[in-house]
């Protein structure tokens, strides 16, 4: 079911603006990930769609119908909560069947569907148990099952993986992606983990202070971040940023210089003298012999990750900090001087005043 938010704002009674003028469209069967730092309003967006909060202004449209004032229990959506929010006094089977029971589905049908979902999620064994007897991972599966068994018109997932330990989180993430492919259901997934957003989303919406900074497919967000916030939020390790100024160099070519960096401008559409931010992802920097690349730096610290190493260095002269990723075969030690080459296609330019992308 397609869902649309049209100019939705939410101001809490204490004056806190959780969502500001958000317009968002989620296509039928699409998995949209809302991602952003804590407090950016992403969970509030989910609760607005669920009907657990009422927007201060704007409309929420589902399947072409205005649902803004329809109460939560009539929206036919399913939500998975971060805390799982299982009914503590009910058995797993009753937890799974509760939604169907509330909709007046027959006992026999409920049993059958509960059993089918339990089988698919491999939680059949747990059906007679109470939530308190389950492990965190098992509770998460039950919460997921409770959503699936209803066959809702859309799934709302509020940080469903954040309480799992890393290995389990990784496995469940894969399973979620498979589930989405199998069910072809509309899903809205909220997370603060940019990696989760990148791997799961058909599109991702990066949020800050209640507003969407960019809504686009994951690769586009990574390759063409709309502004400095998105650029630094998405991707790990974080994108390097340098203060640079565009100047007309010898022969009329436009060059960018500053912070110890000196490169040809990748585009002509820059005013000379404009203060800019040059962004460069750590993986777009390669190590070369000192004097050969675009900058010379001294290594501060090396963090080996096994298959590669994160290198923190300082550009000589300017003292600007820079992070890059190097192969482990390169024999690096702190305090060595290295040359850095910037991949030209990896250069992002942002205006300094509002942080917007230039090219």
């Amino acid at each position, binding site marked *: 079911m397609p869902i649309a938010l049209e100019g939705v704002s939410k101001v809490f009674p204490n004056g806190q603006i959780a969502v500001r003028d958000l317009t968002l469209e989620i296509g039928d069967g699409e998995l949209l990930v809302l991602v952003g730092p804590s407090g950016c309003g992403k969970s509030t967006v989910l*609760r607005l769609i669920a*009907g657990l909060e009422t927007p201060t202004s704007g409309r929420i449209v589902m399947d072409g119908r205005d649902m803004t004032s329809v109460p*939560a*229990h009539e929206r036919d959506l399913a*939500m998975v909560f971060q805390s799982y*929010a299982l009914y*503590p006094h009910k058995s797993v089977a009753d937890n799974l069947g509760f939604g169907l029971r*509330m*909709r007046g589905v027959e006992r026999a049908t409920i049993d059958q569907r509960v059993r089918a979902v339990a089988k698919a999620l491999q939680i059949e064994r747990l059906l007679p148990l109470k939530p308190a007897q389950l492990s965190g991972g098992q509770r998460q599966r039950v919460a997921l099952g409770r959503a699936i068994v209803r066959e809702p018109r859309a799934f709302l997932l509020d940080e469903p993986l954040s309480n799992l330990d890393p290995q389990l989180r990784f496995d469940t993430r894969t399973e979620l992606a498979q589930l989405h492919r199998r069910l072809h259901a509309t899903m809205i997934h909220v997370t603060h983990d940019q990696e989760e957003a990148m791997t799961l989303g058909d599109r991702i919406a990066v949020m800050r202070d209640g507003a969407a900074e960019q809504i686009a497919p994951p690769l586009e967000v990574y390759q063409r971040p709309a502004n400095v916030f998105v650029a630094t939020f998405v991707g790990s390790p974080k994108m390097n940023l340098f203060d640079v100024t565009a100047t007309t160099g010898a022969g009329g070519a436009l060059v960018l210089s500053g912070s110890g960096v000196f490169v040809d401008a990748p585009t002509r559409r820059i005013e000379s003298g404009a203060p800019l931010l040059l962004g460069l992802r750590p993986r777009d920097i390669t190590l070369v012999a000192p004097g050969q690349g675009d900058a010379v730096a001294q290594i501060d610290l090396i963090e080996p990750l096994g298959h590669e190493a994160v290198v923190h260095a300082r550009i000589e002269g300017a003292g600007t900090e820079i992070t890059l990723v190097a192969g482990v075969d390169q024999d690096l030690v702190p305090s060595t001087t290295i040359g850095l080459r910037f991949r030209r296609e990896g250069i992002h330019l942002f205006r300094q005043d509002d942080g917007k992308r230039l090219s």
Partner: protein
Amino acid sequence: MKPRLLSVAAVLFVGAFAFPVYWTIASSFAPEARLFDVPPLLPTDGTLDHYRALLDPRQFWLPMRNSLIVSAATTALAICLGTPAAYALTRLTFRGRVPLLAGILAVSMLPQISLVPPLYLALRATHLINTYAGLVLPYLSFALPLSIWLLVGYFRQLPPEVEDAALVDGASRVQTLRYIVLPLAWPGIATAAIVTFLYCWNEFIFALSFTLGPERQTAPVAIALLRGRYQVPWGEILAAAVVITIPVVAVVVAFERRIVEGLTAGAMKG
């Protein structure tokens, strides 16, 4: 503090509370002549005379029955009305919610005696003086605020996400209350019911003011009226004190775990 010192302190502390109770019980079985012996040690020539006098010529079972009816009815009404009220005050947002909550607290703070004249006039006008309803309704003036406050405190610490889950799952507010909140809040409701019952059981001023004769008097009033013009039947008063304590003790013993759970819930996780 050293464990031994601690146990000595505990014994002294419990003793300070237990001794008067012991005195009451022991004396209620003592014959008239030895009623004022000090100290009232183990009665060797115990007698049931006071109890017999209390039940037969005095018909003390009548005020006991009245107390039970009035307290039970008040408690039932206070819980039935107070539970949805407390839930609404906890979970729904509506205009005037906070003033309403403060108002309920303020009402329960009024000194009871100040309510007696207006309530008396109201009850007389509605011909409810000396009836069960004439006690139950005034009792609600303190029982309802009391139970609402206890329940609001309990509902507040239930995880709201569980209710959100039920709402998204397709349960209306009322169904959420019925299938999710009530089963979870049961210890809190039991606590509120017990505390309310005990308040009603011990109530004196309303019961004295709004009843006319023994047919509707409650136990505390009956005890106060045991005093004759020329003598005070201490033996029977002590026996009556023991008798009216029995239901209280029974309730507390039966629900001891629930009360402790209800009063301390949320203090610890899990």
